[in-house]
Every structure is written in C-alpha cells, then in structure tokens.
C-alpha cells in the first residue's frame, strides 16, 4: 500500500513545524472549513501530518472533524483511536501515529477550522497536566488571529493549499461519470480508500488521464 500526500505542499512547513515543535512533535496540521464544515484549505508540517490529514479527508472521520463538529478539544491515543474512529483509527496507526490531539479554531459564529497535532509529548496524557491542552487552545486562538489578519494572511495561506488537483479531478470525473462534483469527490475518496492510494495520487492520475473511475 502506498499512500502519497499531495505533491507541492510540503516545501514550506514553517509555521506548522514551529507549532508542532511547541508540543514535542514534528507533525501538526491545520484545516480551514466553511460554515457547513466542508474542508476549504489544508496545511501540514511534514509528510506524516499530511498523510493523516488526507486520511481524514478520504475517510470522512477524524479529530479535526470531531473538534469542529462541537466536541471541542479531542485527545485520543492507542486503542482509543480504533474505538473512536473505526476506519481513521487503524489507518493512522498504520502510518505510525499513536496519538492525536485537536482543538477547533474559534470565532464568534462558531468554528472555522481545526488544529491537530500528532504524537504530542506524553505530558498531554497526564491527567494532572491540563495546561498542555490549554496551550494548544491558546495556539489555535493565535492562529485564528493570524489567519484573519490581512497582513499575515497571504504568507500563511501560502503554506497550505486548497487541494486544487483533487477538485480539478472531481470536475473531470463528474463529466466522465455524468454526475455532480460532490458525487465525483465521493467517488475519488472511495477509490482512494478501496485501493489504499493517497487521494492526491489518485487525483494526479485522473488529471494525467491514466485513470478513469467510470471504467470497471
């Protein structure tokens, strides 16, 4: 099974690598969502974080989704990952992730994104160490301010992407299959899941006309 992250997204991990470092890891991911919780933009500190982010996108379940769906802070590790997420849990453990912590990006109308750190320092799991989760919330709040700051926004957005190739591929698949783009996105995700191939890689092959989803 080869799961490859989207190309062209991992050169400048700057900000998120710094965030990951704060929590004793090198894997952190940021996701921005629209009012309906549809994913709009993603950024990751390293390939592992991006893989985990792609898995959440493909499988439709995971910590970023749960934290913005109203659950607030999410903290799971080991077998807890399997229990909470039947598909995402085993999939992230397969790529070597043993623990996840996620908090939503807050604004007055609710949440508009989530910050996830993978395999954070074990202090997170010490019941006596509530400040660890508090620090993650504080960083999420700072990121919200930075993302909404007109001066900081362009540089920050340049550190992530809006899955351009996946959405282009969805357009192509929608014409090939005679369906809507939303259904086409589901077909791409289903193919990615069924074949254990990263969504970025699937999209790239559709764009190169190496793969059609309407042909058995």
């Amino acid at each position: 099974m080869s799961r490859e992250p989207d190309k062209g997204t991992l050169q400048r991990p700057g900000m998120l690598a710094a965030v990951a470092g704060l929590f004793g890891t090198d894997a952190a991911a940021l996701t921005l969502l629209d009012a309906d919780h549809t994913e709009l933009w993603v950024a990751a500190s390293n390939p592992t974080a991006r893989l985990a982010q792609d898995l959440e996108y493909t499988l439709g379940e995971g910590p970023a989704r749960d934290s913005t769906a109203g659950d607030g802070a999410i903290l799971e590790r080991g077998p807890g990952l399997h229990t909470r997420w039947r598909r995402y849990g085993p999939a992230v453990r397969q790529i070597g992730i043993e623990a996840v912590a996620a908090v939503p990006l807050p604004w007055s109308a609710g949440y508009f994104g989530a910050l996830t750190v993978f395999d954070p320092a074990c202090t997170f799991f010490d019941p006596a160490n509530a400040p660890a989760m508090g620090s993650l919330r504080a960083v999420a709040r700072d990121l919200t301010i930075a993302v909404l700051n007109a001066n900081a926004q362009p540089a920050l957005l340049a550190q992530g992407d809006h899955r351009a190739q996946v959405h282009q591929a969805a357009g192509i698949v929608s014409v090939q299959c005679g369906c809507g783009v939303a259904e086409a996105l589901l077909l791409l995700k289903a193919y990615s899941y069924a074949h254990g191939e990263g969504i970025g890689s699937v999209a790239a092959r559709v764009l190169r006309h190496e793969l059609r989803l309407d042909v058995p």
Partner: protein
Amino acid sequence: MWHLPSGRNRRKVVDVENGVPGLAELFAELTGTLLGDVGPTEVLALLTSRCPAMLRVDSVGGVVIDGSQMVITGSHDTAKSLMLYEMQVGHGPSWDCFSTGQALVNIDLTAAADRWPVYAPRAIEAGITTSTALPLRARAELVGALYFCGTSEFAAVRAGQALADTVAAIVVTQRALARSERTASQLQAALTSRVVIEQAKGIICEHRQVPIDEAFRLLRSHARDTRRSIHELARDVADGQVIPGLLPKRKSAAPRRAGQR
C-alpha cells in the same frame, strides 16, 4: 482612613483602603458583556447607570465615538443632555478629553468661560459648576469619554478611570470581533471560490478535451466576454449548468476506454 459622617443623610465616602463596594461585581458584569451579543450602547449604559451610587458622583454621562457614529448615555437627563450639547458645539471637558486623551479632574466651570465660551455657561445654568472628564482609552486608541458632574473624590476618579479603561478595552474588542467576523466570512468565500474554480476547470478540461491551463483560460475569457464574475460563472459550471459558448451541452456519460488500469 476616611471619616464616615453619621446621620440619616450621611454621605458614604469612598473608602480608599477597603475599596469601592460593588466595584468588583461591576467589573465582572462589564467584562461579561463580551460573552453575549451586546453593543457599545449597552456597555456604556451599564457603566453610566451604576457610577453615581457607587462612586458618590451626582450624575454621569458617557460617549463612545466610532467615525461618524456616536453613542451617548447618561445616568440622568442632565448628564445626557449636557454631553449631547457638548458634542453638538464641539467643545467642553469630554470633547477635549476625547481629543487629547488627557483626564480633566474637578474642573471649575465658573472659571472656564474663556476655554469653553458656549458650553461653560450652559453647564452652570444646568447647575453643574464642577466636572471631571476621563478618557475611554485602550492603549493608543481613544474611543470616547466618561463625564462626572459635580465634585469627585480622588478614589472615585481612580476607580472611574479603571472602569473607563475596561469599557474602552471592551469596545475595542467588540470592534475587533466584528471586523474578524467579516474577515472570516470573506476568507471562507474566497477559499470556496478557489475550490469551485478548480472544479470548473476540471469540467471544462474534460468536456472540451483541453489541458487544465487552457480550461482556466477559457473560463476566464468567457467570463470577460459575457461580463460575468469568474466566481459566478465557475459556480454555474460546477453546478452542471449548460453554458452557451463555453459548455454548449452536457456530454453523454457513455464510458470510454481508459488509458491504463
């Protein structure tokens, strides 16, 4: 310690050492307004309505100014109408305080006819001979002024300025929240638009059998030719609409042979 006079009409002097009763509760109530959907009018009204009893001041007025918009509240009509009058004539203690950021404490209005030729006589006529104006300021940003009619004790001025600072911080935060709300919606709209444009590019690419870059060029030039916004056009394309001149009719869904796999 301050001496507390006894008697039925005793004037409870503000106690410097033991603080002002109810002050902590008012601070909590003021900062609590940030949790709800409350504007500057409510916060300022809360402040001016509580100040007289708590700080032993005759009456209190307040003003918050945001560009051309102005909010005025007062504990009594005298304070409110004097404040309004001051803003209309464009001079007076609160006006000066808002302009310079400097507090004016226990100003003798009977000796201020030179400084405020229109305002001072009007205030005296209303029975106000002494007044204090405190700036509503958060860091360098001046948002308004708080006005005490009558003589104010030192502790009342000090507590009043602390309350004014809090209200100013709340007003500035309310403005920042309103701004970030707009920015967040704009950001979501911009990112959504990017996503939809990619989907439209994919549809045009497959429909017209052109490379992705060419698909974007077709989308952009069609938008220009038909004087439509590219975002709107992309939305229609992604929704599967027929676009004469760009996507004449929906292609049949008949499967073709794939290149590989």
